[in-house]
């Protein structure tokens, strides 16, 4: 079956959530329903991860059946606007620009920024932004990660990259010295590749706004679901969130390699 | 006698090259008319205009009483009544010999495949190519190709056959055989318009000979008159150079 399950605006008993299923530990694709993974619509695969766990709780709270639709990042917004999905739960930050186009719920996770570098490089033991003067640094396109690079004095800001796999290859090949990331992604990267190390800024890191480091559920403008979802998210405590994230990091596919 | 084709004031230019200048002549039912003339005098162009492969610049082509240059004429049907044999063979490269001779019958005339093949075989035998039905055009010699092209046109059993030097690529043996066929066709009442360099053929078979020179009809008449007593000086000159060559 394809996307013809969509029924547009009208009230329905399913809750369709769009995500990439390729950004662990927030979301990923796996082949069975172990660790509570949910089937992906129109395929024989399953999606797991932090986002999926949150989505399950929201669906339950709404009293609807959860349907996961796997869509590439660029397709998420049009899918939401055109009613192909009801919500984006894909590790998306509620930036001011995005908020002009869609509505966001309250945050369901908040992280901080770190730098991923090569093990054995001069940056392995960096502690502050100053240590990255003269380093070739990049970040993912269309994220605030890329903008905050400007806060490093004397940095060589490389072209932004489309996706994390490309940045990881660039880092491994020495074309860049590091990329800006969020803690969960960095932990995953370290777990998966012994050549990578995460630098946490103990001595003064990036200045960021809450909008940027938090992630929230994206909804269509004026969606009636917003209040209900905020209510459900409010019931998930900070500790529980951390638990779910720890569990996700432990369960992510790369971890068992 | 019934007039089949009547060409009136036909004109055709290519760029600054006026190839046909006010051509007037007619063909009656059952007549065999030969067009002779030197290279570049416009013989092929005239035939191509009659068949509407070239759009004339002016004049009339009256077929069975109707001017086919008028817009309400079904050109396709008109063309099935004319069989055309080209100087350059133009066999269908994608089809073998047999299918070259059946495709028009089946697709245009709507004959059944069986009937079409029977008719095709009949005319392929006439031109001596019935052994080659499986060959593709590129595998044939020039003479063989032209023989198939003649069979293809004959298979459509048209009212008028237009031949553009049908025997120029044939060997003399075959010329005789094809001549025989053409004579038979003439006796069956087929009207023929033949561009040819074969003076012997023109003399023997035609009812009338048209001599073209630089885009005009310089002279026309019965073969005896044209070949033995040409009125125009340029006809005399053409025939002199032609006959002395052979």
């Amino acid at each position, binding site marked *: 079956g394809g996307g013809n399950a*969509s029924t547009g605006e009208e009230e329905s008993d399913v809750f369709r959530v769009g995500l990439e299923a390729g950004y662990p530990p927030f979301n990923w694709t796996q082949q069975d329903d172990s660790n509570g993974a949910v089937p992906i619509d129109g395929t024989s695969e399953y999606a797991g991860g932090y986002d999926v766990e949150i989505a399950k709780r929201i669906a339950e709270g709404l009293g609807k059946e959860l349907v996961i639709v*796997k869509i590439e990042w660029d397709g998420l917004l049009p899918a939401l606007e055109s009613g192909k999905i009801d919500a984006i739960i894909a590790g998306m930050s509620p930036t001011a620009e995005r908020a002009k186009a869609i509505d966001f719920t309250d945050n369901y996770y908040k992280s901080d920024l770190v730098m991923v570098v090569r093990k054995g490089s001069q940056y392995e033991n960096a502690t502050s932004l100053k240590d990255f003067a003269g380093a070739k640094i990049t970040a993912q396109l269309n994220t605030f990660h890329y903008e905050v690079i400007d806060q490093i004095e004397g940095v060589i800001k490389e072209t932004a990259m489309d996706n994390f*796999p490309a940045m990881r290859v660039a880092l491994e090949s020495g074309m860049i010295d590091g990329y800006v990331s969020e803690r969960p992604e960095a932990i995953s990267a370290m777990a998966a590749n012994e050549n990578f190390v995460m630098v946490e800024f103990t001595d003064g890191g990036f200045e960021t706004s809450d909008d940027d480091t938090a992630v929230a559920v994206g909804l269509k403008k004026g969606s009636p679901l917003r209040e209900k979802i905020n209510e459900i998210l409010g019931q998930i405590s900070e500790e529980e969130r951390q638990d779910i994230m720890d569990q996700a990091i432990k369960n992510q596919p790369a971890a068992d390699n | 006698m019934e007039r089949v084709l009547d060409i009136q004031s036909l004109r055709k230019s290519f760029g600054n090259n006026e190839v046909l200048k006010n051509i007037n002549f007619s063909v009656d039912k059952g007549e065999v008319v030969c067009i002779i003339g030197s290279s570049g005098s416009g013989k092929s162009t005239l035939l191509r205009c009659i068949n509407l492969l070239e759009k004339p610049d002016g004049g009339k082509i009256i077929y069975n009483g109707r001017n086919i240059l008028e817009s309400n004429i079904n050109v396709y049907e008109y063309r099935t009544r004319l069989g055309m044999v080209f100087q350059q063979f133009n066999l269908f490269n994608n089809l073998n010999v047999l299918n070259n001779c059946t495709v028009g019958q089946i697709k245009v005339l709507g004959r059944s495949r069986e009937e079409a093949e029977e008719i095709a075989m009949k005319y392929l035998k006439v031109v001596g190519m019935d052994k080659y039905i499986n060959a593709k055009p590129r595998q044939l010699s020039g003479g063989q190709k032209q023989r198939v092209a003649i069979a293809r046109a004959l298979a459509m059993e048209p009212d008028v056959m237009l031949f553009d030097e049908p025997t120029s690529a044939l060997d003399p043996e075959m010329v005789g055989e094809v001549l025989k066929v053409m004579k038979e066709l003439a006796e069956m009442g087929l009207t023929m318009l033949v561009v040819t360099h074969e003076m012997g053929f023109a003399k023997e078979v035609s009812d009338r000979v048209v001599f073209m020179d630089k885009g005009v009809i310089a002279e026309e008449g019965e073969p005896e008159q044209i070949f033995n007593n040409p009125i125009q000086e340029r006809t005399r000159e053409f025939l002199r150079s032609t006959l002395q060559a052979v």
Partner: protein
Amino acid sequence: MSFQLVKEIFLDNWPMYLRGAGMTIVISVISTILGAIIGLLIGVVRTIPESATRGKRVILKVVNTIFSAYVEYFRGTPMIVQAMVIYYGSALLFDIHLNRFVAAIIIVSINTGAYMAEIVRGGITSIDEGQFEAASAIGMTHFQSMFNIILPQVIRNILPATANEFVINIKDTSVLNVIGVTELFFQTKSITGNNFKFFESYFIASGIYLLMTFTITRILRHFEKRLDGPQNYDLVGNQMQV
């Protein structure tokens, strides 16, 4: 890159690779065939000779302008945009909810059609004028000559370029993941997203792509040979009487 790792990744993920490849091949086979048909039809219409009657001339002019616009537009804009506009746009503007798979086929076919139309145009140009003339001379209409005489020859000549389109489609289906079609490329992306092993994961995907394109080009080569027919012909036994 380690081959041990490649093997492991393949063993872990082969169902994902396989399903992705299946989707890719189905979409590109169907769409290339539909696209080729569109291209051939446009080629046929575009070569209609100028008509004598004014009305027909105007209609033909309009149709040809539409075709040109079609070719320019679909060749000229990124398929990802087309996919978004067709799939999401039809939902947004007309409330038409296409099936994802159907949308995918429509998008890739229309796109291929635009490219094929140009390839066919080149193919028709290369056919000797005499072939058209001989077909006209036995009374064939434009469409009859096209379908019986010209296109069979054109198809032979454009087969290599069509194989190119096929191969391009196999790879271009990747943009369809913006409308949620999970073909090979998207699956591979997910796999790398999981295991962080770019080269090894894409090495496997490349192998699968190669296998698909290689198989398809072999089939089309074989087809080329068949269309060419035997180098020599055999004489038919000389039966003098029927």
